[in-house]
């Protein structure tokens, strides 16, 4: 196979060769095995939601057996993707909320960011005066848990959005009520013989997606910050070169920080470090992968081993004692790959058992003890490492990470003139956008997709954007790509246009900011929403965009949908399975604009997609600058009257 057509990551090239030599099958082999994928599935007009099917739409069979046409089938499939994504993020959040309910002063989980908890408690009308912080935490956790299934009202976080945005949601009737209810409603409505109208299916999808972004993911992020600390700026390294020759290498893969935080603690346990030395290793080397990697790198600077597409290759190095996983985006194939080496593939969550893995259940109630046991298993495995089979590729890049919304505010304070403005606001960012020094800001998020060359679209688009004075914020495997390719170093400023480079210099940030894991896309909503409120505008008025260049998961579909529903134009580098319905394309790539002030744009050529985004941002600036001028005139008039 031509490796250049597989991935642009040079470490991956080295390991693909090794995999071939070792006779290990990887994702790239399986991709080739599929040759051409089924056109019906690709277009979304294959339906198998009932026992009469599967049905597929062709010119000769324009309707399924029940009479559903291509629009209904595509709409149902799309809605179920959104529901799947929302369910994943929200179940993640539910676990974190449960963890907070378990928190105690002398337990495994403590409250680390009391200030953030108090702010949230006040937002949610939980009494804080004179109360023990843990009593507050438990009550807040209970309130959060009700957000999943409360019988009445709409989601609490919605009121944090700019007012015009709240009105749009209300008027359209897409205010999410309770998370699980929205997911269940989609599963209900997409059952055979229920909703037969694509407009309604997409409408429902938007409401469910909002239950992800503005409820599930937002709870996940806020609660993780409260429990594990709000990320602050720190240095780290990324790519498979972070694995070490003579240490016990443990890779944390998955999503939920409740597990990874305990593994971080356990890996620092003196007893286990001593045990590692007893085994002949120099110590324990922890590295992250995917979003759990992002969580621990944001909070502890734990190195990032790699992204979604490198999970098998990490084991192929032969240097990984244990791959510890919880939920989401974990290849079941890892069991097979691990079989070829000494690596222990340890699954921990009852929600994601994988045949062929070593299952060591992790429970929040016995968190540290479980974490200790799991790490010990990894350490004991060091003696089984076959030195002959080890190949750690040498490349790794430095990265500066940890840009939570709070950390960004902290950086912005560096450029506030104390005689003009108060500290702690987004005004410097708003000023840079208004004056045009920054042309815009774009969130580059999402996965890796075997349909394209791994990392190519992420890196191409980020480089193009920063060259054109557009600030890039990133999460998930987009962030891993940026970190691996050196875009998160302060030196990367030289790849940026003069405007962005100047801002980076003054604010002391890299041109691409790591905001965290996929649930942390909610941080992007916070920053964009906050900026819009500061400017007295809606989110759809700002020169901002979201792009998922290499998306693959249903979570990405939910994220893209809630970003659009929040008024932020969203660009996809991979076509979703909707082209089977002209009506679906019409709505998603057109009519949504009139409904929510933003829409989807798809282009599978990253170079072209980057140019489209840049042009669209410039177009949007015209509208934005007019509004800015309007607001300034209003202010001047108000000043004159006073």
């Amino acid at each position: 196979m031509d490796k250049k057509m597989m991935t642009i990551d040079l470490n991956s090239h080295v390991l693909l060769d090794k995999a071939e030599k070792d006779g290990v099958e990887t994702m790239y082999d399986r991709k080739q095995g599929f040759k051409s994928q089924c056109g019906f599935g690709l277009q979304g007009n294959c339906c198998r939601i009932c026992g009469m099917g599967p049905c597929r739409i062709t010119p000769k069979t324009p309707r399924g057996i029940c009479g559903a046409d291509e629009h209904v089938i595509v709409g149902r499939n799309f809605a179920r993707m959104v529901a799947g994504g929302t369910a994943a993020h929200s179940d993640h959040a539910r676990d974190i909320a449960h963890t907070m309910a378990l928190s105690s002063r002398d337990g495994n989980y403590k409250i680390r960011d009391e200030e953030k908890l108090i702010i949230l408690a006040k937002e949610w009308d939980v009494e804080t005066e004179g109360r023990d912080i843990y009593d507050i935490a438990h009550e807040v956790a209970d309130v959060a848990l009700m957000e999943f299934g409360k019988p009445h009202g709409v989601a609490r976080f919605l009121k944090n959005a700019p007012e015009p945005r709240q009105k749009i949601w209300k008027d359209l009737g897409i205010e999410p009520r309770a998370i699980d209810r929205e997911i269940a409603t989609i599963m209900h409505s997409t059952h055979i013989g229920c909703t037969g109208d694509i407009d309604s299916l997409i409408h429902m999808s938007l409401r469910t997606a909002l239950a992800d972004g503005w409820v599930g993911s937002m709870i996940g992020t806020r609660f993780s910050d409260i429990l594990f600390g709000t990320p602050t700026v720190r240095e780290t390294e990324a790519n498979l070169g972070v694995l070490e020759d003579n240490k016990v290498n443990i890779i944390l893969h998955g999503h939920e920080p409740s597990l990874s935080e305990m593994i971080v603690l356990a890996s620092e346990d003196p007893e286990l470090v001593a045990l590692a030395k007893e085994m002949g290793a120099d110590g324990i080397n922890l590295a992250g992968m995917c979003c759990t990697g992002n969580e621990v790198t944001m909070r502890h600077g734990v190195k990032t081993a790699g992204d979604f597409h490198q999970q098998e290759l990490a084991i192929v190095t032969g240097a990984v004692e244990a791959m510890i996983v919880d939920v989401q985006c974990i290849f079941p194939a890892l069991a097979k790959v691990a079989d070829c080496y000494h690596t222990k593939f340890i699954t921990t969550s009852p929600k994601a058992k994988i045949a062929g893995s070593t299952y060591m259940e992790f429970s929040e109630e016995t968190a540290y003890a479980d974490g200790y046991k799991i790490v010990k298993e990894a350490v004991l495995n060091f003696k089984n490492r076959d030195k002959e089979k080890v190949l750690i590729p040498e490349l790794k890049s430095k990265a500066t990470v940890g840009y939570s919304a709070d950390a960004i505010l902290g950086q912005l304070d560096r450029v506030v003139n104390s005689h003009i403005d108060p500290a702690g606001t987004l005004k410097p960012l708003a000023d840079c956008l208004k004056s045009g020094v920054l042309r815009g800001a774009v969130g580059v998020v999402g996965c890796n997709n075997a349909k394209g060359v791994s990392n190519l679209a992420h890196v191409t688009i980020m480089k193009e954007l920063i060259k054109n004075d557009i600030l890039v914020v990133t999460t998930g495997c987009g962030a891993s790509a940026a970190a691996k390719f050196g875009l998160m170093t302060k030196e990367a400023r030289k790849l940026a246009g003069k405007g962005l480079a100047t801002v980076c210099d003054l604010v002391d940030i890299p041109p691409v900011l790591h905001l965290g894991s996929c649930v942390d896309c909610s941080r992007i909503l916070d920053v964009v929403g906050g900026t819009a409120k500061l400017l007295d505008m809606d989110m759809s008025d700002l020169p901002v965009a979201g792009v998922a260049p290499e998306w693959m998961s249903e979570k990405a579909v939910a994220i893209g949908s809630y970003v659009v529903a929040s008024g932020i134009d969203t660009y996809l580098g991979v076509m979703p399975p909707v082209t089977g319905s002209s009506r679906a394309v019409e709505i998603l790539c057109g009519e949504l604009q009139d409904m929510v002030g933003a829409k989807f744009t798809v282009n599978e050529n990253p170079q072209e997609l980057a140019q489209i985004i840049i042009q669209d941002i410039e177009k949007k600036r015209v509208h934005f600058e007019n509004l800015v001028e309007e607001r300034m005139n209003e202010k001047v008039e108000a000043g004159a009257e006073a």
Partner: protein
Amino acid sequence: MNLYNIIFTGSEQALAAAKGMLAEAIEKNGRDHKVAFPDTAYSLPCIYAATGQKMNTLGDLEGALTVVESLINRTHLLEHALNSGLATALAAEVIEAIKYATMEEPYQAPCAGHVSDPIIRSLGVPLVTGDIPGVAVVLGECPDAETAAKVIKDYQSKGLLTFLVGKVIDQAIEAGVKMSVELRVIPLGYDVTSVIHVVSVAIRAALIFGGLTPGDLSGLLEYTSKRVPAFVNAFGPLSELVVSAGAGAIALGFPVITDQTVLEVPMNLLTQKDYDKVVATSLEARNIKIKITEIPIPVAFAAAFEGERIRKAD
């Protein structure tokens, strides 16, 4: 209008004005008519430093304007906005050079116009030692003479070197501010373009003290932004030309603080409507820190008063 368009428009105005004046001057005096500022070894310092070319005749200036034109690119990126600001500065220098080439006495007291090399050399040492902690360029018109005097005297008492451009000169005189090189308050001229004579000071400082190679534009900009602690206070309504010149200042690393509502750029273009805070805001923006030993005496005390002459009448 958006900030970048204002800058580009101002640059185009400056270019058009320079072109018009040059064509007229050439028609009257011919291409070979000599061009020079008095008492300088650096020809037209800004153009010389930026391009490495010395301008000797009106004919040469046509070439200089081609450079100016090439710096104006209306693409909305900071790089082009800053270049456009530099274009305005260079166009202003061409205009001022034509004044010197064609007029008997382009500047009369109180205005200084072009600042000679010897004066710059004399200011060089105190600038390097920090005895002059900063250079303030006060431009435009304050709401009243009192406010103008308050700001200027504040800079003066802190030992800064202050250049005045525009109506603020009359306001300073009206309020009884004493002015001279020794007193570190130098009125340059009433036209906006006369601000180039202070830019020329900063640039010659880079050539003289920084040992910069003429033509090394990026080196020049780095030197001025790192080593010349200058900033601009722009008071009163801002024309496109002034904003464009301000972009030139920002390109050199000099922040602009104004009393007008503008699209602010953190650390670079700031609005301060409270005149009592203008000085503190400006010093912070340029990161100028002043060692102060307050002596409780009833008159202002500072190095800036060292050269003051007490006349009989006083």
